[in-house]
């Protein structure tokens, strides 16, 4: 009996198993070509194999194709079926895979695709604030529209709540009030111009968007970024994560009327924003990350940065202890907005939301990119799936981000050299880029033709996770709404693009 010298990896057996042809692609991208009729069957097999749905899109490289992206054990499987005779028609994935529903509706409503067997639903991408469309029948049941004009300083999104007065009988989340067409906006721009647009898709995750986009361009054109740039990218990303997590925690304190707690976490967040402004000249870390590297070194002395991080960590620990020791706070979050693990997996949710329900998924760990290939990462998870679990995950990640920052500062002292490489050589290419944004895994597909962006598609964590929000109120009442929404920690701008 002969023994194979190396274990057979997924990339080797998958094509044969799925009846697909393997095409060359960059690391962590398993590109498979299938016949249009086999697209549905193959996606189904991927789901059965434990894959997570990422997105559906229309690609134009190397030829017009319907493309499905799935995350499977440390790789992204990119399923491509050529479009024949210009008509885009495919068997509905959303009919049996809840995670695919919204992505599929976007294809159908925006790009004229035909999904056979798609469940009938209200139009997703052209929302009308005045149409309530109630579905629950019963005495005293009424529809309560919440949004798109919110009662507070929040982004526009609408929730239609059907209620008998207290219980939430049915909830419908309606995104796309803010669709600005940012993906189409980059077409024809050079990568370093396009990054200005990309940074403004979701303003509170500018660094994550710039990183994922830049990595996609670099991967498409086969560019290797200097290590010093990768190190800075990781640092800017972690500072962004800290600010975002502190923002969620402050908002949770606010909704439970814990004034001092709210003030404390707001102070820590503002200090983080000011620190970012000192390092990059922008409170949101904009204008630093570009395809090919980073524009400049952080404008702060190492000792000063370390002192800031130490102070932040000390304050965070103290306030966390108080926060978690406040009965009124914990009582509120405990058991609120519980999401079962199976549901989270059905919807292929990502980020702190998925990790709070015991799903250990983190792009930094699954498909390490940039400096995360060298930095160790502890993926923080919690099992309960409630608002408390999601807050706990964020607290854990604050500590982890600070640890990564310190590790990066040490690394930075050992790497000299350039911050950017010139984008020369290849003028064409297409690839995925990804990173773990504060809201969860962000994946961007970029096609470059003759040195300009030909097509871009964003699979935002906010859109993917929001599909789950309709199910976040199994036992909760209207007054629980705000803190459950905050525990999701998503941004409509990223979802709507």
């Amino acid at each position: 009996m002969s023994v194979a010298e190396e274990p057979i990896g997924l990339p080797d057996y998958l094509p044969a198993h799925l009846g697909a042809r393997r095409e060359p692609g960059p690391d962590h991208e398993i590109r498979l070509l299938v016949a249009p009729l086999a697209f549905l069957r193959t996606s189904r097999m991927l789901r059965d194999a434990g894959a997570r749905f990422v997105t559906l899109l229309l690609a134009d490289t190397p030829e017009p194709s319907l493309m499905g992206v799935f995350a499977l054990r440390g790789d992204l499987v990119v399923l491509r079926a050529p479009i024949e005779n210009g008509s885009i028609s495919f068997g509905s994935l959303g009919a049996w895979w809840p995670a695919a529903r919204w992505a599929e509706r976007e294809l159908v409503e925006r790009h004229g695709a035909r999904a056979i067997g798609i469940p009938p639903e209200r139009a997703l991408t052209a929302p009308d604030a005045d149409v309530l469309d109630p579905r629950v029948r019963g005495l005293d049941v009424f529809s309560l529209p919440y949004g798109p004009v919110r009662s507070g300083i929040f982004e526009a999104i609408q929730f239609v709540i059907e209620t008998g007065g207290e219980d939430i009988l049915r909830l419908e989340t309606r995104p796309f009030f803010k669709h600005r067409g940012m993906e189409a906006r980059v077409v024809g721009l050079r990568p370093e111009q396009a990054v200005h647009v990309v940074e403004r898709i979701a303003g509170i995750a500018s660094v994550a968007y710039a990183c994922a986009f830049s990595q996609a361009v670099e991967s498409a054109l086969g560019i290797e970024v200097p290590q010093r740039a990768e190190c800075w990218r990781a640092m800017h990303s972690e500072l962004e994560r800290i600010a975002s997590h502190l923002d969620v925690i402050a908002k949770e304190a606010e909704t439970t009327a814990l004034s001092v707690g709210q003030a404390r976490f707001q102070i820590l967040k503002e200090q983080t924003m000011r620190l970012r402004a000192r390092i990059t000249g922008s409170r949101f870390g904009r204008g630093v990350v570009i395809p090919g590297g980073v524009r400049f070194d952080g404008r702060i002395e190492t000792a000063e940065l370390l002192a800031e991080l130490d102070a932040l960590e000390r304050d965070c620990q103290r306030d966390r202890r108080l926060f978690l020791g406040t009965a009124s706070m914990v009582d509120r979050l405990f058991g609120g907005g519980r999401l079962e693990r199976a549901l989270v997996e059905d919807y292929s949710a990502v980020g702190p939301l998925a990790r709070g329900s015991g799903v250990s998924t983190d792009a930094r760990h699954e498909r390490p990119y940039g400096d995360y290939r060298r930095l160790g990462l502890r993926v923080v998870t919690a099992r309960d799936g409630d608002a408390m679990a999601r807050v706990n995950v964020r607290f854990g990640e604050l500590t982890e981000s600070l640890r990564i920052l310190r590790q990066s500062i040490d690394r930075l002292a050992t790497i000299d050299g350039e911050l950017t490489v010139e984008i020369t050589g290849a003028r064409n290419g297409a690839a995925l880029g990804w990173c773990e944004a504060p809201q969860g895994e962000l994946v961007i597909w970029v096609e470059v033709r003759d040195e300009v962006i030909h097509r871009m598609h964003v699979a935002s964590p906010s859109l993917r996770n929001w599909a789950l929000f309709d199910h976040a109120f199994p036992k909760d009442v209207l007054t629980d709404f705000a803190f459950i929404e905050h525990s999701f920690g998503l941004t409509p701008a990223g979802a709507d693009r």
Partner: protein
Amino acid sequence: MLEWIARGLSKRRVTTRYPAHTEPGPPGYRGSVSVRDAGGAAPELARVCPTGAISVDGGDIRLDRARCILCGDCVRAAPERFAFSERYETAARSRAGLIAGGTNEDEEAEPARRALGEQVRALKRSIHVRHIDCGSDGAEEWEIQALWNPFYDIQRLGFFLTAAPRHADVLLVTGGVTGPMRAPLERTWDVMPEPKALVAVGTEACSGGLAAAGGLVAGGVDQVLGVDVYVPGSPPAPIAIMHGLLLAVGLLREEPSA
């Protein structure tokens, strides 16, 4: 709870004393772009700007801050002509007031401005603010929320947040106004009682910013409703928004742009 109180008291005061004392951004902060040398420019210079904020007319550079997203492409391309300024205050009461370099066409608007100031001054120290998002990138919301954090504590100046537009004196609008948000915006403004002021927060609200070219946004709030104060910036910092709010209620005098 006592522990929280002790924790709060153990920390020093962090609140800014703005506007009594001015507060600049940290060194290297990209608050706004100013024109260092406006004369004798080549027409091609206008092309470096991704939002068309720069125009060259007869060799004279004009920079429209309502369109500027602070990306710095111009500063990198022509550092002898453009520079970043760390100053937070960028708001103006008219689009013309946001144009740097060239001549200032703002003088005609002066009587209207004074009238607005008089009108809203009656509300001094009890001004209720409402916010509506019409397609921002989400960063403006963070910066407006920050006004109520202990660093800025805008309540000390008499600004309160209200959930009901019917109680609001000032409407903060973010975003370049997407199709589905147009009607909600008009309705929100209509039900606000007089006197009232509308503040456009962020470059997207001032001109549509980068999204304007896509055609899915109206290209600024003033394409839909009259704007009383423009606060450009991508996003404007909390102090910049505070400056805009104070301008809107006539508590501050506007400074001519550099």
